[in-house]
């Protein structure tokens, strides 16, 4: 394959010719390498085991216009309309571009660095290179390669050793703020040093009527004894293809807790890979999805127990209506020597219509001794007797369904230890229940 066709293949999904994006030579090389790797595979297809439930042909048919260089007035207005009611520092990206007007970076607490990647590239290119250089290790994942091919912007967050950050840090990515379909590929890099503690809320947003392609990669490192609570509110544009990859390294006795709450997007892929790299490290990787219409939500998690005495817990619950489809794929790998590992995984889905689907695929690969691993998956309907009981007391069918769905999802939301994050999801869920068509 010639160099030109190679870069064209990635260009197709970047909405801009690669040569137009500048930066230092190492960055251009990194993009070129990403483009080459992506061209070799193209978009993932269901023939790949990890993508067996998700077909991206719809995305392949779209075309994208270049994102605006400057954030225009209309985009800012759209962004303002989508802001969550949560205070504290904030980074805002609109169609992949940093929006200073809607960001809140003044008065950051001591020990907290938070800035757009473009600022780091401009001011401290050496540090940017150190942070991103290893990020190219794309694990053979086409979406990470594509993200690298268009790498230019994202959130950079560093929490200094021992710093306990009081308020959640919010990172907002809006896709679809302009009239035309846009493509963005944010690259977030979050470093939490030893003993630090922080809550981070990622908000994927967009207007209901818009189309967008968001292909983000979030790399998180959790230092020894540190705690990271990572919430993701996926409420992207109704026509969005939101492909998100989260890669986490968890150090000795450190805790990583994530909750991905998905209500938006035409298609959402939540690729989460957590490596428990220090003794005593633990993670809780959970989520909930509320789908209807033609929505598709694929949660694909991989937990790697690389050291002894590491624990993982996953709880995913979903409610699927219309012709939508919800998926949970959970792989737990216990490496040789990772003795006394404890891994637990649970997936439960409720189908509200006869055309809705849910799939669960647990995979356990255990190469160590004295390991406790369990998994369970259920797919069912709302309890008919409970529905009748509620209706026999005068509660209309739609409301009865809403009450049962709410109770079902509430159990998953219990997994979140930071109630400020939980409140954001509870509020969004309440809106979804009210939208339940009767």
């Amino acid at each position, binding site marked *: 394959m010639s160099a030109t066709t190679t870069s064209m293949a990635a260009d197709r999904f970047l909405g801009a010719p690669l040569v137009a994006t500048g930066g230092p030579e190492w960055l251009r090389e990194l993009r070129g390498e990403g483009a080459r790797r992506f061209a070799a595979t193209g978009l993932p297809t269901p023939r790949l085991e990890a993508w067996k439930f998700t077909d991206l042909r719809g995305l392949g048919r779209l075309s994208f216009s270049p994102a605006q260089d400057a954030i225009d007035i209309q985009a800012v207005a759209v962004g303002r309309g989508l802001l969550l009611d949560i205070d504290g520092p904030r980074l805002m990206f609109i169609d992949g571009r940093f929006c200073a007007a809607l960001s809140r970076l003044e008065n950051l607490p001591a020990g907290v660095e938070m800035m757009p990647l473009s600022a780091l590239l401009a001011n401290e290119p050496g540090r940017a290179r150190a942070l991103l250089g290893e990020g190219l290790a794309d694990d053979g994942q086409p979406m990470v390669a594509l993200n690298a091919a268009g790498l230019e912007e994202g959130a950079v967050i560093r929490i200094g050793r021992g710093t306990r950050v009081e308020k959640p840090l919010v990172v907002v990515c809006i896709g679809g703020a302009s009239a035309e379909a846009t493509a963005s590929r944010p690259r977030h890099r979050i470093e939490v040093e030893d003993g630090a503690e922080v809550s981070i809320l990622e908000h994927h947003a967009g207007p209901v009527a818009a189309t967008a392609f968001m292909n983000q990669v979030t790399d998180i490192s959790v230092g020894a004894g540190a705690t990271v609570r990572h919430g993701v509110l996926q409420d992207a544009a109704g026509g969005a293809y939101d492909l998100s990859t989260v890669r986490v390294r968890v150090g000795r006795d450190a805790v990583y807790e994530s909750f991905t709450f998905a209500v938006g997007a035409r298609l959402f892929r939540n690729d989460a890979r957590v490596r428990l790299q220090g003794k005593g490290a633990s993670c809780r990787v959970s989520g909930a999805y509320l789908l209807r219409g033609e929505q598709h939500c694929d949660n694909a998690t991989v937990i790697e127990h690389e050291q002894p005495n590491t624990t993982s817990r996953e709880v995913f619950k979903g409610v699927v209506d219309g012709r939508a489809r919800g998926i949970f794929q959970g792989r737990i790998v216990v490496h040789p020597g990772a003795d006394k590992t404890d891994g637990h995984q649970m997936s439960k889905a409720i189908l509200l219509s006869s055309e809705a689907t849910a799939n669960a695929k647990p995979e356990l690969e255990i190469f160590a001794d004295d390991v406790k691993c369990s998994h369970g998956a259920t797919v069912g309907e709302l309890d008919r007797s409970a529905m009748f009981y*509620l209706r026999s*007391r005068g*509660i209309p069918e739609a409301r009865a369904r809403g009450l049962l769905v709410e109770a079902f999802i509430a159990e998953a939301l219990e997994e979140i230890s930071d109630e400020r994050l939980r409140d954001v999801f509870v509020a969004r869920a309440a809106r979804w229940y009210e939208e339940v068509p009767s």
Partner: protein
Amino acid sequence: MTSLLDIRGLRVAVDGKQILAGIDLRVEAGEVHAIMGPNGSGKSTLAYVLAGREGYEPTGGEVLYRGKNLFDMSPEERAAEGVFLAFQYPVEIPGVPNNTFLKEAVNAVRRYRGEDELDAMQFIKLMRVKIKELGIKDDMLKRAVNVGFSGGEKKRNEVLQMAVLEPRLAILDETDSGLDIDALKAVADGVNALRSAERGMLMITHYQRLLDYIVPDHVHVLAGGRIVRSGDKNLARELEKTGYAEFTGAAA
């Protein structure tokens, strides 16, 4: 004058199997009817079909409730129109607090009837009065609907729902079974408190015991999907002595 409930030649099938084979029964406002009968005779089937449970299909006859075809109404409409079924086996609903459930029910029915919804304070006041009357502990309102309730608590919870929804036609399906004497008295008090000239009741029971506390105007024996005998309260006493053997024989 139209009857409160007028059941004419009602036949019902469950899973394609005929369970009720032609029931005729009329309940006027102000009356209490007891329905007795051996296990499996179709008592609960009658209760469910009146409340609108799916899977209980009328295959013949008709039921008029205050002159209207009951089968034209959804379960929630029937409830809002004043039909109430106290379940033989109340359903557990994990994750839905009893309080929330009761408030949703009361306000749904009030909305239907064109009345203002109760706000949080008004609702709490109403509940305080009702739980005191029925000897129900506070914490039963906070727990999930019927989850972890004892048999007696479940039955009291049914009567509590009935008390707050104030139905016109109350159908009680073995609300007395499995209760100790105190619980039985509390349940009977709750039911008697609702007795009025505008209300009718259908009390399904296996034992005559309940009828010592709630004295019926009419007693019917259901066996093999038919009402095989009707009489006044003395029929219940007679059955207490003779049992249902003669009817199960007849039904077979």
